[in-house]
């Protein structure tokens, strides 16, 4: 094949790719041309304002800290759980429930979003019961403000999920003021034969996604 023919075919392929790329760019973001280049329209004066949508998840209460305690003698487990912004509950143990409340999540952005929660550990990772029993680590998402979140799991205790992406609790977390806040309650059942003794902790990742 002559080099000129090869060059011609290569040019055609690149042009096709370029047009495809430009088409996708303009389809996804019609303002990209203006952002990249900027231009002045003659004949008309006008104000051009581009408002981008964004998701911003804020945790105004970002820590559930139970402090130190032990299971009551003779019991096979103790159960501890937060109750929204009220008093937490301790059953069969001597942990203090003072100042232990649910995580408080707000959508501070300007678009509705789904909400998923991923943890770093599951119940067994957290407590390591030697008999692999009597251990739970669960979450319960409820609306702080009515209508903030919708989803099949709302109001139910659900085992935590440490796999990538976590569990979707809200299909549509609102962003409008007064309908954009939820609670994430946390429940522990601590086994009497826990292999992990002393201070235990976990990180919870809460992700909002406006793309669905």
């Amino acid at each position, binding site marked *: 094949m002559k080099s*000129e023919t090869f*060059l011609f075919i290569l*040019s055609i392929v*690149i*042009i096709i*790719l*370029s047009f495809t*790329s*430009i088409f*996708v*760019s303009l389809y*996804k*973001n019609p303002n*990209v*041309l203006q*952002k*990249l280049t900027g231009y002045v329209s003659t004949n008309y004066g006008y104000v051009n304002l581009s408002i*981008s*949508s*964004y*998701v911003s998840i*804020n*945790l105004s209460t*970002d*820590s*559930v*800290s*139970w402090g*130190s*305690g*032990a*299971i009551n*003698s*003779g019991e*096979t487990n103790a159960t*501890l759980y937060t109750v929204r912004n009220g008093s937490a509950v301790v059953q069969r143990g001597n*942990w203090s429930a003072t100042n232990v409340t649910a*995580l408080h999540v707000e959508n501070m*952005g300007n678009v509705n*979003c789904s909400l998923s929660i991923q943890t770093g550990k599951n119940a067994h990772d957290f407590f390591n019961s*030697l*008999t692999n029993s009597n251990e739970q680590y669960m979450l319960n998402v409820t609306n702080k403000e009515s209508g903030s979140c919708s989803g099949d799991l709302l109001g139910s205790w659900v085992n935590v999920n440490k796999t990538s992406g976590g569990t979707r609790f809200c299909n549509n977390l609102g962003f409008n003021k007064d309908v954009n806040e939820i609670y*994430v309650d946390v429940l*522990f059942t601590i086994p*009497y034969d826990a292999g*992990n*003794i*002393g*201070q*235990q*902790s*976990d*990180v*919870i*990742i*809460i*992700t*909002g996604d*406006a*793309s669905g």
Partner: protein
Amino acid sequence: MKNNSKDNVNNVVVVLVFAFFAISLIMFAYTLYDWGVKTTGYATGYVNITVNTVVSINVTTGTVNWSSGTITAPATNATLTTHGTDAGTATNGNWSGTNAEAIVVANIGSINCSLAISGTKTAATFFGGSAAQQLYQWNVSNKEAGACGGGETSMKNTWANVNTSAATVCNQMDFHIDNNEIFIDFKLVVPYDATNTGALYDIITISGNTAV
């Protein structure tokens, strides 16, 4: 001359095609970047708890009661022995063993522990009379398999004189349900010439410490 002109045109075309391609790629990349930032957001929460261990000893059967009796003549002593949860037996005497079962001790804490026991009397201080005709002994054995296992002491499964100072009878007493109970059986050899008569008793102190 003609060929040189043609080559120049080709070079210009190549440069223009690649420039076009580069611009389209930049637009495409910018679009993807801009689009992604707007649609996701995440926040991080934390949970933590401190789990303490507990040593807790429970005496589920705490009294060995032989009630009233006498030595059968012409024996010079009577032997009273407990047998776990079975009724006690009296040899050469008419004491009832109905309420004379072994003391049962359970580790209901959340960690293995050592176990030490002590009485307040010896055979001599319990009965008085002929030293050769009297005994006051205990015998520690597992009620549940493996309850007192690992680093066992020489006192286990052996009749030994009651010690008025704390004697370790179990180095590793298990805390797991179904493996955490032991018996302390007692043997009393009552001399015919006991100087202490009437209702006699002793107090057994049982203490658990973190196993080493």
